[in-house]
């Protein structure tokens, strides 16, 4: 789960990382009032769960309240990569002598977190890593509490050898590592970490991604959750894993791997999946009806495919859920079902009652049939 910059800055500040005081606004008037309070030049920053805000016009400098109001109005009307901007952060503009990059993230191959530090801050770090890999410094961490102050100084000195600066940076790095462990993050990032002309270091941006599996023990961060839509919330509360896509074929599958393979097969045979949706292991009928509701809310959906391989999931449970959904919802699109595995025969008997449902015996046959029902393969 990603949280907003202003939320991440609050979290960082709690660990002693220096940030500038700012406030969030949801209206242009509020933005103007905050700018007046802060005084001087301010930055108006879109708060969205995606990168590339600057390029999209979501970050603007304002010399006073009136300009802040105008920028806030424009930014609050933006949609950045599919994310509508609902909040802006207003912060004092900082004078910057130099910009650095600091982050901690999981290195899957190494099975532990890695610090990434660079003197090339303020830029797209992947771009820096690609073009000038020598400017990226890495340091792997063992478990919580194992990162020593002298190690922080060594890493900091690699990106800023000046004795007046690197100890301050090392202190920020130590706190960043502490925040990484304590928040169950999969990424904590400061880009840029700024050095001011006065010799202070400041986190001018902040990013935290939290491990979804750890949300149960991070109640403070869990409160920051913002579902992208009502349907995303319904899916999450029902324990469904759901990702909307652009196509026309709604998919209901048990298991993430099979769900991905189903999307791939739809595309392979010339169709376009409308979503990824994994109903998980034990599928009670309610999960199935919720899945149908979510999919049917997408006006682009022209047909629905169920691809269920019963292991723990019992096919007859899913069949009952499909019947319930057919009874309770007005379903005007064709439904193609492939159910195999545990209690397959019972499921087939149940579905024989449903005239609106077509069955297929194999995954390939089901996918080809649903593509035909959705209007045929793309030309």
């Amino acid at each position, binding site marked *: 789960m990603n949280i907003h910059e202003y939320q991440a800055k609050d979290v960082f500040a709690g660990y002693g990382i220096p940030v500038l005081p700012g406030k969030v606004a949801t209206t242009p008037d509020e933005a103007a009032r905050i700018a007046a309070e802060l005084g001087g030049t301010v930055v108006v920053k879109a708060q969205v769960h995606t990168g590339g805000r600057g390029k999209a016009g979501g970050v603007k400098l304002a010399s006073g309240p009136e300009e802040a109001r105008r920028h806030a109005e424009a930014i609050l009307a933006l949609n950045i990569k599919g994310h509508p901007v609902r909040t802006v952060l207003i912060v004092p503009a900082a004078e910057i002598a130099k910009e650095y990059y600091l982050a901690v993230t*999981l290195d*899957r*191959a190494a*099975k*532990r*977190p890695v610090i990434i530090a660079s003197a090339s801050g303020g830029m797209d770090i*992947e771009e820096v890593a690609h073009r000038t890999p020598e400017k990226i410094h890495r340091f792997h961490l*063992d*478990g*919580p509490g194992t990162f020593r102050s002298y190690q922080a100084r060594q890493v900091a000195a690699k990106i800023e050898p000046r004795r007046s600066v690197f100890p301050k940076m090392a202190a920020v790095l130590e706190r960043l590592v502490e925040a990484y*462990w304590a928040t*169950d993050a*999969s990424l904590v990032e400061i880009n840029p970490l700024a050095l001011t002309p006065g010799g202070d270091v400041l986190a001018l941006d902040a990013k935290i991604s939290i*491990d*979804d*599996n*750890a949300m*149960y*023990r991070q109640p403070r961060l869990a409160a920051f959750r913002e579902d992208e839509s009502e349907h995303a919330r319904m899916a999450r509360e029902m324990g469904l*894993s759901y*990702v909307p*896509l652009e196509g026309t074929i709604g998919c209901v*599958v*048990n*298991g*993430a*791997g*099979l*769900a*991905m*393979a189903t*999307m*791939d*097969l*739809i*595309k*392979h045979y010339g169709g376009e*999946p409308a979503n*990824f949706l*994994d109903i998980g*292991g034990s599928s009670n009928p309610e999960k199935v009806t919720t899945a149908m509701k979510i999919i049917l809310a997408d006006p682009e959906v022209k047909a629905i495919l169920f691809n269920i*391989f*019963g*292991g*723990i*999931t019992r096919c007859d449970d899913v069949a009952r859920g499909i019947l319930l959904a057919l009874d309770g919802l007005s379903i005007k699109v064709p439904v193609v079902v492939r159910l*195999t*595995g*545990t209690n397959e025969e019972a499921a087939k008997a149940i579905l024989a009652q449903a005239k609106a449902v077509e069955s297929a015996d*194999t*995954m*390939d046959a089901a996918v080809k049939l649903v593509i035909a029902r959705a209007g045929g393969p793309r030309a």
Partner: protein
Amino acid sequence: MSILVDEKTQVIVQGITGRDGSFHTQGMLEYGTKVVAGVTPGKGGSMVHGIPVHDSVAEARAATGANTSVIYVPAAYAADAIYEAIDAGVKLVVCISEGLPVNDMIEVYAAVERSSSRLIGPNCPGLISPGKAKVGILPGFIHQPGDVGVVSRSGTLTYQVVDLLTRAGIGQSTCIGIGGDPIIGTNFLDALEMFENDPQTKAVVMIGEIGGTDEQEAARFVKSSMTKPVVGFIAGRTAPPGKRMGHAGAIISGGGGTAQEKTEALNASGIPVARVPSDIPGLVLKVLGRG
């Protein structure tokens, strides 16, 4: 032969009194697996499906000598269950539980590395040596004894592939679901190495997915060190970057971990990659010279 589990394997079920633990204990017993003890702290002395329950893994081991454990406890207790098993000297620990925080797994992984135990999972369906034993939640009835090893990051997709193999008359030596999390105890490379050393296994099917670089590392191993043919499949070709596809590990991030990269890495190591699951049996027969 087969790898990791066979007819002699004696199994301890951690979390046996829970809903999942009890249900799948029955499934394992029905398959013929020698489940010899259960563990639920505070419920020692009771019985589940005729299996004695102990308060700790150490007690269960002392009473039975069992060397394998399977874990069905809620995510918040799963890391502790793994530590308990390895500290009790269990050689093979299979963690079915899903939802373990990555930070927990970082420390668990390091502890497993220091021990003489092997961990499979977490967030996995377990493993089966058809006709001999199953440890986990896989549906036994789709499997058939034979000479093809199967290793996969997913559950139901593995069932789909195994079902296709069985229907094509291709039996399996052992099928392992290694789990869909970013950090897992046994990865593709480990499983391939064991299959390479197993006389029963003549070929391996490796079912990967987007995210991480385990498939690429496995491909390098196949090229450098394997004599047996491997057939691959990668799920998630159409997954958008930055979106978690159900599994915590299935996410394309930082321009890495795409299905295309993985397919290219496999092909570069001489591993044919099926475009669709239904192509897998044909490729297996081909690499075995039975096509």
